[in-house]
């Protein structure tokens, strides 16, 4: 692929560009969610696009694609995610935003029993090209706090309860670059994919992103730093913590390798095992609660 000189985009801008480019090439793609645009129906008063989602990743899409394809929804996660499932079974490719992953309790059946199982239960007769985007984690991280003050119902990770479900692909990008590539891959996938977008990265991360459309493979981890002595495994924002740790360790003469897991399900066991087979040591950095967690799954893989 030839690429132009990469510009710096924010994490949210990269996702926005991914969705925009895909919507231009495929009229079957729609975006639904609470305030994915904002000020719905108020264009006659001069109000459009008032919000753009929690990470502003969908801001501006309504001015290009209109309210027919950028659908602000009422607060009804079970209803509009279900509509997304039904639309995906009947000819559309919906991208549904659940504002925060903490809200999946309101629509978990649509994820667990409906979207993830349709292809299997129906013996392969339907495709389910559905993307669920949701923000996770904490906003904080300015060297004073990793919290952010949002409390226990707006700071969770919860990816373990998603990765547990067969049939659902669970993707956690860590940079603006891989956020764009993985989002495009998710949109082109014919099955359900949930993308967890870290709030801190969404609000703070920036990085080089080619203007061209490109995909990155779902189901592949990436070794982002080569090392001999220990494998540090990170998910989403924690990959950056791993890299910072690797810098610190380097000053102490320890050569750490950093693996960015990127897809939690299906897990790229091969890349992780290959790394651990060389370093013989595995440290998993995870911000989720430990019981039945993806971290434990990674330890199990590496053991």
């Amino acid at each position, binding site marked *: 692929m030839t690429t132009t000189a990469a510009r710096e985009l924010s994490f949210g801008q990269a996702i926005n560009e991914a969705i925009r480019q895909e919507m231009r090439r495929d009229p079957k793609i729609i975006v639904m969610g609470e305030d994915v645009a904002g000020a719905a129906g108020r264009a006659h008063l001069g109000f459009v696009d008032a919000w753009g989602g929690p990470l502003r990743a969908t801001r501006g899409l309504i001015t290009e694609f209109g309210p027919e394809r950028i659908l602000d929804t009422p607060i009804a996660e079970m209803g509009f*995610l279900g*509509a997304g499932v039904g639309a995906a079974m009947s000819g559309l490719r919906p991208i549904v935003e659940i504002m925060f992953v903490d809200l999946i309790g309101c629509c978990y059946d649509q994820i667990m029993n409906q979207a993830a199982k349709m292809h*299997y*239960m129906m013996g392969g*007769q*339907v495709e389910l090209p559905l993307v669920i985007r949701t923000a996770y984690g904490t906003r904080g991280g300015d060297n004073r706090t990793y919290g952010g003050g949002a409390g226990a119902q707006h700071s969770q990770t919860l990816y373990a309860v998603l990765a547990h479900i067969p049939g659902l*692909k669970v993707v956690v990008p860590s940079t603006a670059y891989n956020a764009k590539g993985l989002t495009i891959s998710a949109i*082109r996938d014919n*099955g359900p994919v949930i993308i967890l977008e870290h709030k801190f990265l969404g609000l703070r991360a920036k990085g080089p992103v080619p203007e061209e459309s490109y995909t990155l493979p779902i189901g592949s981890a990436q070794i982002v730093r080569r090392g001999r002595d220990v494998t540090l495994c990170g998910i989403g924002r924690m990959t950056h913590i791993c890299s910072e740790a690797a810098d610190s360790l380097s000053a102490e003469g320890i050569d750490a390798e950093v693996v960015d897991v990127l897809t939690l399900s299906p897990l790229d066991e091969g890349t992780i095992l290959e790394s651990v087979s060389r370093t013989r040591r595995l440290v998993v950095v995870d911000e989720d609660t430990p019981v039945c967690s993806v971290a434990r799954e990674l330890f199990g893989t590496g053991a």
Partner: protein
Amino acid sequence: MLSRGGCSQEKAGKLQRLTHTSSNSASRAAGLAQNLPSREKLLWMYERLTLIREFEERLKWLVETGVPVGAVHYYTGQEACAVGVCAALEPGDWIASTHRGHGHCIAKGVEVHRMMAELYGKTTGSNRAKGGSMHITDVRVGMLGVNPIVGMGVTHAVGAALSAKVRKTSQVAAAFFGEGGASIGAVHEAMNLAAIWKLPVLFVCENNGYAQATPVEYAVSVRRIADRAAAYSMPGVTVDGQDAIAVWEASAAAVERARRGQGPSLIECMTYRYYGHHQGDDTGRYRPREEEQSARDRDCIRRFREQTLDQHLLTATELDAIEAANRKKIDEAVAFAESSPLPQPADLFTHVYVPARDGEQK
């Protein structure tokens, strides 16, 4: 007299006429005189009514003789609801169904031999043995799935209607649910979405009086579920769900409204399931026997037969021939299911993820 709910009613007089429960066949005939399905459609309706009945009765016999067909919820008694609604739909339209879904499948055109094979857990089944009774699906005929998580199919029908609107087709979607399902939030969220987006949806509530063993008068806050249509600014009508022609007439009006872009409607069909919630359920623990007999006295198939014969719309010879053909069709479906192969253990692990299509750019 059943009530009519909802607001912004059109054709109030016409809809009012649909709500009567009079057993006076003369007034029934007078009521039908101006608006009847075509003769061809009437024949189709009788064929589907009796095919569903034959399928379920044979299934019940198979279950009771020990054939392992999994958990089943017999539709027997409610046939007029599925057939009346589907008679108003086109082949390209969509339906979404409930756990009690065999009747909806047959009414929408799913082939009974593939359904029976699915129940037998054979690879020739509609879902390649991966669904069973509670997941029968055939998207080729617009059947989006039997769905046993109560209320969820309603949201999927709304999604299909959204798809039709975005893709600018004339398709409509019918969402079946029971009076039990009328209590789950998903149904209300779906109704609100369909109303604000003016989606082409028929919300079809089959009120059979019982959610498992919980009676409707205990669980539902309103006297008529159709009254809830008012909360979503859509027409709501209660019809006699034992009268396939009345269900068809209400559905045809709702379909016409939906295709005109005027949004969803709610149709409540008053009906009754003859058997328990599922196979083996003893209804004597929660329903009076007199009530069950009273429902059987209003049997939808006998009634359809009487209506069409009394009015000289169809002949007994035609109807008898349909019943005989259906018995043969179910015989063949059972033979097909019995002779089909079982899945292999490795089949457990296929269809977990949706594959990329051949040649697709990734």
